[in-house]
């Protein structure tokens, strides 16, 4: 289609009399033509333009700041050296028995000792070990939730789906308190076990409790991405399999499961990345004996021991990015092609015609619900309870404190309303930036060219770099700024916060959108292009509607990440009037947890409403 054709087609009301259109109208039409041409030209370049914009933003608010810290690992005392890495790798504190390997001991002897009972994993080894177990548990708790949300219809399903990622935003101090109230010696679980005359369970300060807390944060992530994948499966393909004689199980294994593996694996990979960088929940619920890599990065940076801190953070990054790269290779090679999509019909939770199969599935859901009640609902419920608990029974005093602070607080103190307003505005603005950034990067990395997965993994780095390093980098590279020719260029305040949030959020959009784009039949885009649509137009009109559930899921994640963000915000804020809710909570913590807890409940409430709105605005519409 040429421009002329397009404009002709778009002018159906053109008068048909022989004299042609009057002068004015011809002028207006010319203007419209011109506008359309400009728009078309813009669309042709838009993808590249946004790509360049994204790179500029991520470079100035992520790569450069992080580089100002990472360089310390390579330049020690003014000399370029790799000694920091050498020392680190040979240090048994970090690498346990592996350190001997790096020190040049024979692999066989080290391997033998690794198999012995008193082997030492070192901090890095232990961190990987607990991250692996956390990932298993998160998948085990996340996939059943996806099954429930994707395959069953029940009252409140959509709201429940919207709220799945709520745990993402809960500050760790509240999780610690909520978990103590649920799983502690005097907690809800033990009270219930006592009432049932069962022996009590000691979970506080164990590795098991850390794993459960990690599942609290990450199982919802697995659930959400798996749900999105499940909802994207074309019912037609399942029906075809069934009509060809496949049993329901066979159809599931052959048709449904292959579409779910990439999503589950993505959830698992992200869970591993997050729990590998876990902080500070490990020490809050476990204790220093269970310290992970990030605990040491924090300590080293606090002591300004930058060479070792940077080297450790780089090792941490290398491990997580290596894993991400492995996953991305898998994602690219296991994309399942699809054309249109009609989602599978949901089953009612109460079966119409009870059969043993159907009952078994419901029984499993009931058992899962009990577990979920303890892992997800009870800790949050106890946070809400703590916000209204006082020494003499129920009280609204903590909320009254927030109101009073709002009314009389000084300018250098946290103001609750401003914190709520900022959180919502920053998250909305960050979302508006992160969505196009993520979609563009997803589109650019699902094109076919050599090394595209390397580009993809580099684009994912904001997920994997230690938050403590990013915070210090932003202070150095952005707040203090860059000095060029007698001028110091610095940034800070609202715009910088929003941009930093967007940089932290957009990888989620990429990860939820890219698998869908990868799976689209290239013929769809090619036809659109052959008919004259610019690449951007094809993306907007053809591809995005087809991967819409992924876009909505990515939007929800981006929003959640922004709502929960702490370290960048507190560094970039140029005053208390730019603080967000998580910062307010942190600052309100004192001898009494009450006011901070009340603020935490406000955070939960505001976030819940936002999630529901995002999902409602996103809609459940599918297909072209």
């Amino acid at each position, binding site marked *: 289609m040429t421009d002329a054709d397009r404009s002709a087609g778009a002018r159906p009301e053109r008068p048909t009399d022989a004299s042609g259109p009057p002068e004015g109208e011809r002028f207006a039409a010319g203007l419209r033509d011109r506008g359309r041409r400009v728009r078309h030209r813009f669309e042709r370049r838009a993808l590249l*333009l*946004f790509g360049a914009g994204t790179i500029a933003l991520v470079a100035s608010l992520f790569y450069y700041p992080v580089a100002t810290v990472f360089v310390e690992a390579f330049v020690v005392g003014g000399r370029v050296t790799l000694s920091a890495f050498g020392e680190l790798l040979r240090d048994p504190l970090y690498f346990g028995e592996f350190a001997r390997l790096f020190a040049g001991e024979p692999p066989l002897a080290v391997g033998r000792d690794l198999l012995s009972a008193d082997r*030492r994993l*070192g901090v890095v080894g232990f961190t990987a070990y607990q991250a692996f177990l956390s990932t298993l548990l998160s998948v085990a708790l996340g996939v059943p939730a996806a099954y429930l949300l994707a395959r069953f219809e029940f009252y409140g399903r959509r709201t429940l789906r919207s709220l799945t990622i709520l745990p993402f935003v809960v500050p760790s*101090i509240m999780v*610690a*308190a909520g978990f*103590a*109230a649920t799983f*502690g*010696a*005097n907690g809800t679980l033990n009270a219930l076990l006592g009432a049932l005359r069962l022996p009590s369970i000691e979970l506080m*300060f164990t590795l098991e409790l850390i794993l459960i807390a990690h599942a609290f944060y990450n199982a919802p992530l697995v659930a959400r991405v798996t749900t999105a994948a499940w909802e994207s499966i074309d019912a037609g393909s399942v029906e075809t399999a069934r009509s060809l004689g496949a049993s329901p199980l066979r159809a599931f294994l052959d048709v449904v499961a292959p579409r779910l593996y990439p999503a589950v694996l993505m959830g698992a990979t992200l869970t591993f990345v997050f729990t590998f960088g876990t902080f*500070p929940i*490990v*020490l*809050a619920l476990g*204790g*220093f*004996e269970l*310290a992970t890599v990030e*605990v040491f990065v*924090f*300590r080293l940076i*606090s*002591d*300004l021991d930058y060479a070792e801190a940077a080297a450790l953070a780089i090792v941490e990054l290398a491990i997580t990015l290596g894993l991400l790269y492995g996953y991305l290779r898998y994602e690219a090679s296991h994309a399942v092609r699809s054309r249109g999509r009609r989602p599978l019909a949901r089953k009612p939770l109460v079966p119409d015609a009870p059969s043993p199969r159907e009952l078994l599935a419901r029984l499993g859901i009931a058992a899962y619900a009990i577990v979920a009640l303890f892992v997800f609902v009870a800790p949050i419920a106890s946070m809400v309870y703590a916000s209204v608990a006082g*020494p*003499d029974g129920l009280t609204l005093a903590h909320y009254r404190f927030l109101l009073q602070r709002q009314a009389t607080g*000084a300018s*250098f*103190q*946290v103001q609750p309303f401003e914190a709520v307003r900022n959180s919502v505005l920053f998250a909305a*603005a960050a979302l*508006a*930036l992160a*969505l*196009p950034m993520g*979609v563009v990067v997803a589109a650019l990395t699902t094109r076919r060219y050599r090394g595209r997965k390397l580009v993809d993994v580099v684009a994912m780095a904001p997920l994997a770099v230690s938050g403590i390093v990013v*915070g*210090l980098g932003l202070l*150095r590279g952005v707040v203090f700024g860059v*000095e060029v020719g007698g*001028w*110091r*260029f*610095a*940034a800070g305040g*609202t*715009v910088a916060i929003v941009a930093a949030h*967007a940089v932290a959020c957009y990888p989620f959009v990429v990860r939820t959108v890219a698998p869908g784009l990868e799976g689209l039949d290239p013929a769809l885009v090619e036809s659109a292009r052959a008919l004259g649509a610019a690449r951007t137009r094809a993306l907007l009109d053809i591809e*995005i509607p087809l991967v819409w559930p992924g876009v909505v899921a990515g939007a929800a994640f981006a929003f959640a990440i922004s709502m929960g963000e702490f370290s960048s915000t507190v560094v970039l804020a140029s005053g208390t009037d730019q603080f967000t809710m998580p910062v307010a909570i*942190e*600052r*309100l913590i*004192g*001898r*009494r*947890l009450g006011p901070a807890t009340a603020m935490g409940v406000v955070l939960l409430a505001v976030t819940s409403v936002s999630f529901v709105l995002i999902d409602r*605005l996103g809609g459940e519409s599918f297909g072209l």
Partner: protein
Amino acid sequence: MKRRDLLVVGGSAATVGFAGCTAERTGEGNGNGDGGDGDTGGTTTGSASGGSGSLSVATYDSFVDAPSDSPGEWIKTEFEARHDVDFEWVVPEQPINHFIERHNAGVDIDAEVYMGVKPNELVRIDQNTDGELFQPVDVAALEHGQNIGEQFFFDPRERMVPAYSSYASLVYDGRRFESPGTFEALLEDRFSGNFGVSNPAEGSNTGLYFLLWTIHEFGTGGEYDYLDYWNDLLENDVRIVDSWNTLYGRFQDDEIPVIVSYSNDRVFASRFGNDLEKHRVGFLNDQGYANLNAMARFAQGTDDELAARFMEFVLEPEVQAKIAELNVTGPVNTEATPPEVYREFAQEPDEIVFFGYDRLEGNLEGWISDWEREVVGSR
């Protein structure tokens, strides 16, 4: 169509760019180490006539923002009323490290005074700054300067002006336990899994004080040194959690009944109507570890006059008493009388334990990293 519009609008926003950027000509005088001696006459911001002006004082967040104990607001209001100046608190995240970074990057520091420097922080500052972050202050020349107790000074180079202090001690649930009384008692079965401390390595003051206290008690490198003691504590399931906030939370919800906290705990307990039977303060060997806090003058500061007036203000007996009440810390001016509630509920140890600058310098990092290896390395 709506979705696409959303994306397009967002995309346009992406290109709007950096409205928050600033570009400033880097002037002279913000470099490193150009301070040093404080008697350079002083260019003052605002009018130098002793009338109006503005003063920025830096501090850590809980000094101004914690709902339970923050004197920041009162200090601002009172100082402004007395001196007809605009008073501003500057409260960056991790303030000490923030100012070290800022100084080393050669970026201006606007604040004149820092409120609340601790000995271990001063050691860290001196070890990591190029040139001087703070300048010496002639305490004797300050009004009330002579009344500061000798035991509150900790800087051999006289940059620190003591401001307030308190003591680390045990806080225990008196309904379930008696005071352990000694370090050895904490190794008994009854305290197994019942004693907690915050992580000394993670910037927690009480945790660090307890670590230093064990070093004071058991020494380093001997037959049974502090690391041996910590090993025995670990055998007895000591809980080492991330922060004092977490630790205190677990004390309040009865998960850890004996913790390392402050000897002024009962002031808070009585203020918030908590069970005073539960909030008991215990010392080890009748000792408490001193938590010393000082004011310091930034080397880059320009308004010597106003900075001195602020320090004198903080040292005034009635201001000292007010800080004692609001911050729940003890006064350093020996002429000051702490408020009734403080005298009634804050306890003082018979013996004060405390490592000075000289002991900490050159040792602190090694002590902590040896401790880390002992606790984590055996895994």
